[in-house]
């Protein structure tokens, strides 16, 4: 059973809770193979997907997960909402709450926005990405994919390469992998390397060759042009030469390495097409697993609802 009513970040989860979510997700995967891909677990529950930032994969993944659990879903994208008319975040949520949804899945460009709402609202809040802070369901689906292939976390070398500075995927993944006993190597150009990484017990390097050497898992992150207000890299072509994942670099890793990417991919910027589509890539499995993991999170949190807060 989960201790918190909300899923705001990996920071709040204990290893046993992470294992419970992954085990529950494993049971959920089978539903996708049925003739009727739906179970009645969340029948009559209303889930609002509130996306203040554009997202295709995560929002669709949550929607599919909610529908497979028979919840009633409502997706609101920022462009259509009254935020553009000047309403504050809190007023938007209070208005939504007046229609009594049970859960709110939320993405916001400001770090900590879901935490604020969790304090002020009655609904269960699931963080679907807040600024540069956390993206817990992404880290959970990454963990699920790693566990499926490696059967363990303990002692694994996981290399995370790319735009670390702007990445909430990195921050959630580092915490999760640390809790589960894996060793994380982080690699980025010095301009995109967050200073606080060392505090998390991460081995930081600017050499991708060092990062991927004997790695069990390589996780590539996207260059987030939309968050770059300044010159962090000279050119995408130079970036690819120095930090792109090529077949030659993959060859330095363990023979059974898996290559991951949370998407959307920039082919030819952080990853070579031959690697993205190659035999070590589990990128599309991540998408499939995302649905099962989000079903697990929704189901486990739905059970919390009755609890007094």
């Amino acid at each position: 059973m989960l201790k918190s009513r909300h899923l705001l970040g990996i920071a709040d989860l204990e290893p046993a809770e992470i294992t419970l979510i992954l085990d529950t997700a494993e049971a959920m995967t089978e539903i996708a193979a049925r003739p009727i891909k739906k179970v009645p677990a969340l029948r009559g529950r209303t889930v609002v997907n509130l996306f203040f930032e554009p997202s295709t994969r995560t929002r669709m993944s949550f929607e599919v997960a909610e529908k497979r659990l028979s919840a009633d879903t409502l997706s609101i994208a920022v462009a259509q909402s009254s935020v553009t008319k000047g309403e504050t975040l809190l007023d938007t949520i209070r208005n939504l709450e007046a229609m009594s949804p049970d859960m709110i899945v939320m993405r916001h460009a400001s770090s900590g926005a879901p935490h604020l709402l969790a304090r002020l609202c009655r609904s269960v809040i699931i963080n679907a990405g807040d600024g540069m802070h956390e993206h817990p369901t992404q880290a959970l689906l990454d963990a699920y994919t790693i566990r499926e292939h490696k059967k363990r976390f303990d002692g694994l070398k996981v290399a995370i390469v790319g735009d670390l500075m702007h990445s909430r995927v990195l921050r959630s993944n580092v915490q999760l992998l640390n809790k589960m006993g894996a060793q994380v190597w982080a690699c980025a150009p010095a301009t995109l390397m967050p200073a606080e990484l060392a505090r998390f017990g991460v081995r930081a390097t600017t050499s991708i060759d060092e990062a991927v050497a004997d790695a069990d898992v390589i996780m590539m992150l996207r260059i987030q042009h939309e968050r770059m207000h300044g010159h962090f890299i000279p050119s995408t072509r130079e970036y690819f030469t120095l930090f792109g994942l090529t077949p030659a670099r993959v060859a330095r890793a363990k023979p059974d390495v898996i290559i991951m990417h949370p998407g959307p991919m920039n082919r030819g910027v952080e990853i070579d097409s031959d690697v993205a589509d190659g035999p070590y890539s589990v990128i599309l499995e991540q998408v499939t697993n995302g649905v099962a993991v989000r079903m697990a999170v929704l189901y486990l949190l739905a059970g919390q609802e009755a609890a007094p807060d």
Partner: protein
Amino acid sequence: MPQVMDADRMSRALTRIAHEILERNRGTSDLALVGIRTRGVPLARRIARSLREINHEEIPTGSLDITLYRDDLMRHAVGPQPVVRRTEIPFSIDDQRILLVDDVLYTGRTIRSALDALIDFGRPRSIQLIVLVDRGHRELPIKADYVGKNLPTSLKQSVQVRLQEIDGEDEVLLDDPAPAGGASC
């Protein structure tokens, strides 16, 4: 805790049920066993084994987790949220005669959930219900086709089926007065 069934009697009851299945269905063609997790699964496997010994035919056997079909997910005064486990039905149930297996038949709510779940997998020709123990107190119009033992109980009592595969021992215990949350359904 008083024992109401030992390993011997349990084994005889399951063998008898296997014979009843053959008699009633005139053989094993189109039959498939589905055990309800947790303890229905080993019981289904044992019945499959008995049927094989008697009739020399293999019966497809699957397992069903009904957690996501329960009607009490949001009523947590009852106890901790149940853990979801894998459903494995590696065959088509369309036009099959399904033998649904559970350890204890009580309110009938588990069976109601299991019927809903099964129907999501296809359209079986029929569904028959096998239980090791029928303890009465139905809350829904559900009845078993094959019963290992009819056990009159009071609502205060709890029935506990223990199996070699899970608990290391074959026996049925009748506990009274029940501590909160006995393993019955």
